[in-house]
């Protein structure tokens, strides 16, 4: 019996259980003076849960361990001297051949007598396993069903039980967020520590040369893994992006919040927010095909040689990407400034712009700084734009019109194509990822604290 059929069987049993619980509880409640604790549907659900949950748990456990168990049993049955003569990899190949014979796919040459015997054994074991799994789950399901159905009585608080199961399921889903974070931290920490067993942390964090070489060059030819050129490139691109996004975004927010007519607001705001929904790969392509050539044309006009892929190209594209982010966050914060402050300033005779510059903005400053920090963290973690448009040149230099490389670009370069997690060349991606995670986390935490403080101030 296949797994799918088994699941279908369990679901049908659960439906039956629901029905039985429903009719049973109705029968119990048929006397006039008997009042059930819960409505019949809850009894039905509870019986179905008793029937299905243990059986499904068993099924899951079985699916996790059955294949290994069968393999072990088959290997034990193979001739001892044959197993001893094989390396691990050869044994794996053999097992694959046996499995192919066992499920009827067949192999080239038809298989040796030992293989055929083992395959027959494996097929037998698998049949036994499947049948016994079906039998055991069916028994567990039926036992649960009968047990729960017999417990149905007016005093059994079915609703409370069902609701507890629901609450536990809801709570378990919210724990997934925690597990994700733990997973991120543990995976990156683990792999980063392995990286630091090759390269000393000081050489990584304070090294000024990035030259990882290729992993195929062998362990003897270890390259240099200095973080600083990458960090510098990241900073340069992010600062350019913020220099583009902050003035435009902030002025847009101010104009939208204080000056714009409702009509302009209703038209322009969604259009600018479209920018936020565009995938970053599209910005990268835009940078590469429009911004880069445009800058290089400008350079030709002035008489300097500007490359199409440079920190400037990537920074401008990234700045465009975060304009809506800055403007919508600042907009929220500016509209939160109490009207009384504005009215006070206007009442003293200040013009609108004076009110904004000397009253509203200083009052909103913490929130706006928080928004800038969030924007900065987004710029630092952005990948595709820099992969396409920054030029990948991990060298310390101060010219924004030169190519640079960033942390994210390097993660992509070091980890694509090569999934060999044993060389420092690919493990360094995790050390870089950890650095990136810590930097963005720090920025976010500071930003959240600042914004929260600001909120409290005006609540």
């Amino acid at each position, binding site marked *: 019996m296949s797994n799918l059929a088994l699941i279908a069987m369990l679901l049908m049993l659960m439906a039956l259980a629901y029905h039985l619980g429903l009719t049973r509880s109705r029968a119990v409640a048929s006397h006039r003076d008997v009042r059930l604790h819960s409505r019949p549907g809850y009894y039905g659900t509870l019986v179905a849960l008793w029937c299905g949950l243990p059986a499904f748990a068993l099924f899951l456990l079985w699916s996790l361990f059955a294949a290994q168990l069968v393999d072990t049993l088959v290997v034990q049955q193979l001739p001892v001297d044959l197993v001893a003569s094989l390396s691990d990899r050869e044994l794996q190949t053999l097992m694959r051949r046996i499995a192919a014979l066992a499920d009827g796919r067949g192999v080239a040459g038809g298989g040796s007598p030992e293989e055929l015997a083992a395959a027959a054994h494996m097929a037998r074991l698998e049949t036994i396993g499947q049948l016994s799994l079906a039998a055991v789950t069916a028994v567990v399901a039926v036992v649960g069903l009968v047990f729960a159905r017999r417990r149905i009585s007016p005093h059994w608080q079915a609703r409370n039980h069902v609701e507890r199961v629901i609450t536990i399921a*809801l*709570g378990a889903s919210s724990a997934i967020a925690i597990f994700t974070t733990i997973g991120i931290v543990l995976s*990156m920490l683990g792999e980063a520590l392995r990286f630091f067993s090759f390269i000393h942390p000081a050489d990584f964090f304070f090294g000024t040369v990035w030259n990882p070489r290729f992993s195929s060059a062998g362990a003897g030819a270890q390259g240099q893994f200095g973080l600083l050129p990458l960090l510098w490139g990241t900073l340069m691109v992010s600062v350019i992006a913020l220099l583009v996004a902050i003035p435009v975004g902030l002025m847009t927010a101010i104009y939208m919040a204080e000056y714009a007519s409702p009509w302009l607001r209703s038209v322009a705001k969604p259009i600018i927010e*479209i920018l936020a929904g565009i995938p970053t790969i599209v910005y990268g392509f835009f940078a590469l095909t429009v911004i880069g050539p445009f800058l290089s044309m400008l350079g030709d006009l002035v008489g300097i040689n500007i490359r199409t892929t440079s920190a400037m190209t990537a920074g401008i594209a990234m700045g465009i990407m975060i304009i809506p982010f800055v403007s919508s966050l600042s907009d929220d914060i500016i509209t939160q400034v109490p009207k009384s402050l504005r009215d006070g300033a206007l009442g003293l005779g200040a013009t609108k712009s004076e009110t904004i510059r000397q009253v509203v903005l200083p009052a909103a400053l913490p929130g706006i700084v928080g928004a800038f920090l969030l924007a900065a963290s987004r710029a630092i973690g952005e990948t595709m734009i820099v*992969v396409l448009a920054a030029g990948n040149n991990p060298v310390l230099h101060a010219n924004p019109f030169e190519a640079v490389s960033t942390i994210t670009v390097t993660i992509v370069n070091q980890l694509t194509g090569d999934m060999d997690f044993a060389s420092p060349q690919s493990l360094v991606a995790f050390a870089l990822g950890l650095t990136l995670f810590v930097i963005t986390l720090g920025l976010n935490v500071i930003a959240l604290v600042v914004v929260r403080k600001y909120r409290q101030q005006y609540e």
Partner: protein
Amino acid sequence: MTLSIEQRREHRLTTIEKSLARRHRKENGFRRLGLAAVLAGLTLVTILFASILTKGIPAFWQATLYTEIHFDPEVIDLPPAPVREAGETPYAFNERHTQWMTQVGLVNWQSLIDASLERALGEEVEPRQLRDLRALVASGERYALRDRFIADPSLLGDTVTIKMLAGADVDVWVKGNIDRDLPDARQQLSPQSRAWIDVLQDEDVLRQSFSTALFVNTDSRSSLASAGLAGAFMGSLFMMLVVIALSVPIGVSSAIYLEEFAPKNRLTDLIEININNLAAVPSIVFGLLGASIFIGYLGLPISAPLVGGLVLTLMTLPTIIIATRASLRSIPPSIRQAALGIGASRVQTVFHHVLPLALPGILTGSILGVAQALGETAPLLLIGMNAFVANVPGTPLEQSTALPVQIYLWQGNELRNFFEARTSAAIIVLLGLMLSLNALAIWLRKKFETRW
């Protein structure tokens, strides 16, 4: 010096008047600055879309040849296709089938195309010019011809008009994406091929036709003109199914728990801070997580949409949780109090009363989250979804790429003047999908919006 009261007043008034003029100028300047910023934003959106549309839309039409192919029995000399016999193992049949396919592969399909082009040109082509002739047709077309014959062996001996994609270089030339005055050495096509193109265009054998290849073919490296999005589209579809199946139920449940049931304690505080932080973690970090845990530790297959879907699920969860919580929070407490007041339990209150009212908001948030996941590229690169895949994946466990990754792969192709347009076309397809998802979300919000 003493001034009379009158004079002093006069003096003060002129000062004020002067400063007022100055302040009003400043006011206007500031206002214009704001307007300029808004206009700059709007201009940027316009430039972005204009550049992609002008580049991409022509790529939906492609230089195509309509020629008569004669399925010459002298060239196609094949036994009938093998049929599986009773009692034959799949392996044995496979072997026989492979043998037959080898024979099919040995047929010189290209010569059929050559012959038909010769007829269209109305001239004998010398053997040394064959290269120039073959440059006209996308090299994948001979396989298309083969597959067509396998599907319908009765074509043998017939002459049929067949639509074939012209080579990528031909498309570039016909569309004028290359400078026609470049010297021969820097042209992608030989002078002979270019001359033939003119002849074929005059005879209307070669014309622009809507490129179905872009939608029904998979990526191709050997036959660039026939590269299409079908594989990437299926990969993205599988991933989105995984994302919807996992992130929506989990996200909504966890939001319900945090908003409606969770006791206020340290643990729930931690979960809350944690979710806010996860929402701001760079997407590439989720890719690292996927590479290390799903592929390295759990041993799931590389490049599979399932793994991509799992990674994107983890990435979208915070978005959906935050949107759902906001939507639940906007339901006024009076609804809950009324339900509790007439004796509903907390679970009943939430599932019977609060959740139905919050549903439009939850739906909107979920759709936006899925749209965001659809456009994400960086984490997919780290789990190997940038591999070249020549098949349409049939299950979420097969190798595949995704739409945004296909864009990444195409923009890096060396044949710039062909693939820049093709990439823009792919971007239009992706943006079209994303914008329609967004429009759906906005429509839902507008339709069901309630003001309490």
